[in-house]
């Protein structure tokens, strides 16, 4: 796959269709990669990488990149194309300046899951059918492939590209995922249990803002939490209230626009399951206002900027589920 991508990128650079390529750059180890812009065939040959660990969603970088001189080639996984489409809906990306090649998605692996097995000193990782072999400073280890699958890929919602100029590899389908299972499990807990669960998770937050900054739906020029004029700007949660406020507002602000790409959970240094907050909104929107997938098309209105005169009343919250 990586070779095919590099080959096609070089062709498009050579024939002048694009003048830059957005992809992933090799890192220090077998598992780290950095989103990067490549300008020459030599750079692509030397540094371009696309493997089981290139999880990062590249669509947010296109806000900036599509405003630069010339056209840029972007490699987007299926889930990234939803974010891309949503950004197009919000007029954040200049479509004419981007050439999108859809590439097959995951399942991508998460090195944190490998490390959680107690495997450390990783110097090399290879895949052999359903097993991954991990070379370490302390000998060779192996583990089942599926146990290392990242959170965002373990509940994949779609392998279909919703926006692209051409595809490398085959087109996939929208999947029947079990992504709301954990939300449902929490809904069926008592109010006190839910409170304890979230208090435990959110108190780990160090307010690094990685979840916000990486989110393709969070594109405000000046975030309310950074704006001294807003009266609620914070650099750290000085009280557990502020942790909750930040995460409620972060999730609420992207409600109806979140494509469930899972980047927030991926980047959290404290492994807080932030996607559950977003999925709660998605699940509520689906059940109360009809099935909706942000970024799936260019025409459907976002449920929060739309209404129906027969919508349910907020008292529905008081009536359903467990108190």
């Amino acid at each position, binding site marked *: 796959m990586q070779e095919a991508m590099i080959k096609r990128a070089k062709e498009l650079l050579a024939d002048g269709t694009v003048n830059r390529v957005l992809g992933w750059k090799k*890192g220090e180890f077998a598992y780290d990669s950095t989103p990067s812009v490549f300008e020459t065939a030599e750079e692509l040959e030397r540094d371009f990488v696309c493997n089981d660990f290139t999880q990062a969603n590249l669509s947010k970088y296109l806000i900036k990149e599509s405003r630069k001189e010339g056209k840029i080639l972007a490699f987007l996984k299926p889930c990234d194309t939803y974010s891309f489409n949503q950004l197009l809906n919000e007029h954040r990306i200049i479509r004419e300046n981007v050439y999108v090649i859809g590439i097959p998605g995951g399942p991508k692996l998460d090195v944190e899951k490998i490390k959680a097995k107690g495997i450390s000193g990783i110097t090399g990782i290879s895949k052999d059918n359903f097993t991954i072999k991990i070379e370490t*400073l302390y000998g060779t280890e192996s583990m089942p492939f599926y146990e290392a699958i990242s959170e965002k890929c373990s509940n994949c919602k779609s392998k279909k590209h919703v926006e692209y100029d051409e595809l490398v590899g085959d087109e996939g389908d929208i999947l029947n995922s079990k992504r709301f299972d954990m939300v449902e499990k929490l809904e069926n807990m008592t109010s006190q249990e839910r409170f304890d669960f979230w208090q435990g998770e959110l108190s780990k937050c*160090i307010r*690094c803002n990685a979840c916000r*900054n990486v989110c393709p739906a969070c594109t405000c020029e000046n975030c309310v939490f950074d704006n001294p004029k807003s009266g609620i700007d914070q650099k750290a949660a000085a009280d557990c209230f502020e942790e909750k406020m930040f995460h409620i507002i972060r999730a609420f602000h992207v409600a109806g626009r979140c494509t469930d790409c899972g980047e927030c959970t991926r980047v959290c240094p404290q492994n807080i399951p932030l996607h559950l907050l977003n999925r709660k909104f998605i699940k509520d929107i689906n059940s109360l206002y009809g099935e909706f997938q942000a970024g799936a098309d260019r025409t459907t209105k976002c449920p929060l900027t739309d209404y129906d005169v027969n919508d349910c009343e907020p008292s529905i919250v008081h009536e359903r589920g467990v108190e």
Partner: protein
Amino acid sequence: MLKISAEKLNELFDKIASQQTLYIPVDREDKCAEFKKYESGMTLSKALNTVRSAKDFFLPQTENLAEFRRSGKTIEVKDIRKESEDFVVFGVRACDAKSFEILDSVFLAEPVDTFYKNRREHGTIVTMACTRPEETCFCTTFGINPTVPGGDASVYFDGESYFFVPFTEKGKVFMASISDMLEDGDVTKLSEVQAKAREIMTRLPLANLTTDSFGGEKLMEHFNSEKWAELSEACIGCGTCTFVCPTCQCYDIRDFDTGHGIKRFRCWDSCMYSDFTKMAHGNPRTSQLERFRQRFMHKLVYHPSNHEGEFGCVGCGRCLSKCPVSLNIVKVMKALEDK
């Protein structure tokens, strides 16, 4: 050398905890380690390092400084400083132990930060020698020997027993308080374990990284480097690297209106944030490139220039494993070195 067998470690913790507050690294549900206040029954984490560094004990993420209350035309200022209680931090690694020296050089230099000093004086650091360094480790680059971790007292583990060695007065007092539980032990196995750890240190992927191209005298060369644009291109401007870093020490002072008074507090700040060092005239660093450069220039050039050649990094590897887009000081060093 004095030792205690591994089975008895929790008894030892119970004893320490009965005298003063004890913090040890424990595993969370997600298998990441963090320092927690010891309560009977907790087990010491086997992880190499905690996600958050040990600097939290001396420079907490938020800390109240003063309170104000207005009555009529007067403002009452309340000094809320309290003498810290004695505490022990057990299981600090060599990198974090070294980071305290770096923090000391900032906070204990005149004018002394009394909040920091208060905590520092009451804390006893018991370090633990590394036996299983990870691929992200590069503390040796900064002259740290993880098999001799320093601190007030050190603990060495040979697989069966924990050996204790005191270094400072505080460490000796600590040792005296637990001496009745320690016994003399044979160090043959320990020397083998130590030798093996040292051998692995030489095989680490980052073992060849050096600081030769950095230091105070390289200011203009690195500041004006063209590499910064490419290096900082992917940075998303979050504060992960600065907040997990054991040596990042920048903070902001803010006021919070409680509705019945003002609380003045300080909290960690990050040079990656757009409002870092914002002043009345605006912000001195307006692009992410400048903010990104600031962080690494501080670690590799400004800090050594202001503190007799001491670098502001200890090679703990936290930023390597936690950066959302895998940018880190190692990549910066390698890129700047590359002429």
